[in-house]
């Protein structure tokens, strides 16, 4: 199969049960899907892998109803968003039952995650690369779900705000507002590593 086959063409082949086309589609988008799932679910691992597989299986099963009206990645990331939010909602409910992490009734966000971070004020010079990486990951992981997704799509997927709005089902203003709030939170959490904030 030629490399320049676009996603819409692959989806039409998948609709006819072409496993080779499905393999190509997975290989093309696996890092994007897995990376987003891992960021949204607090890190790489078996759970992130299982959810990412669920997403691709849903793509296979939805191929019959898929209509190439917009960009394929927008549709794919909408599937990612829906599944990740469902899964993390289930996780939050489980934690809620266990009493390990109380969840805010109104926003659905973890109460613990909104606590101010007091332990991340070590100077950047003293940090190794891994430590810095962990600090950024932890700061992102502590963001509320919607903010985390917006930051990830903007920062790592390089998406436009309009596209992010389509994926999250939010208005442009709401997306921009989430991005602003996320930035403010990250600024506080990572202030120890930023020279410009001093």
């Amino acid at each position: 199969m030629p490399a320049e086959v676009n996603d819409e063409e692959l989806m039409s082949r998948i609709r006819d049960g072409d496993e080779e086309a499905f393999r190509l589609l997975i290989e093309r988008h696996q890092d994007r899907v897995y990376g987003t799932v891992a960021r949204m679910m607090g890190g790489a691992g078996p759970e992130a892998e299982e959810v990412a597989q669920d997403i691709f299986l849903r793509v296979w099963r939805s191929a019959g109803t898929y209509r190439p009206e917009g960009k394929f990645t927008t549709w794919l990331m909408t599937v990612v968003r829906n599944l990740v939010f469902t899964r993390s909602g289930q996780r939050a409910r489980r934690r809620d039952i266990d009493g390990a992490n109380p969840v805010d009734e109104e926003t659905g966000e973890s109460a613990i995650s909104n606590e101010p971070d007091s332990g991340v004020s070590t100077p950047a010079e003293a940090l190794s690369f891994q430590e810095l990486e962990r600090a950024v990951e932890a700061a992102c992981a502590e963001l509320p779900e919607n903010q985390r997704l917006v930051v990830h799509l903007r920062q790592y997927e390089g998406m436009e705000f309009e596209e992010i709005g389509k994926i999250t089902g939010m208005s442009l203003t709401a997306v921009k507002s989430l991005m602003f709030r996320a930035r403010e939170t990250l600024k506080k959490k990572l202030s120890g590593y930023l020279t410009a904030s001093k």
Partner: protein
Amino acid sequence: MEKNRSSEEAFGAELERLMAKAPPPKAPAWFAAKTLARLREEEGRAKEGRSWLAGWRWAWAGGAAALVAGWVLWDRPKSGLEISDAAVFAALDALVEQDEENRWWAGL
């Protein structure tokens, strides 16, 4: 104000640089193969379920036919023609009346 804005911009650029140093993890090398294996396994299981249903399709069809036949037979009238008692008495009355009328005309 101007100073604030430039420090904000510097912060934004630095935050972006910082975040770029911690990219999201990549999918493991076996990811596509494992996903395809899972797809085949799940499709196989679904197929088995469908073939089990298909294997029993004659039993399902026979059962449904027996139910329909039973319902039709149960609901069917016991004989082809049913005449109510009232209709029989009315006919007899009419015969008697007719006989009386014939006798009157005959002067009997």
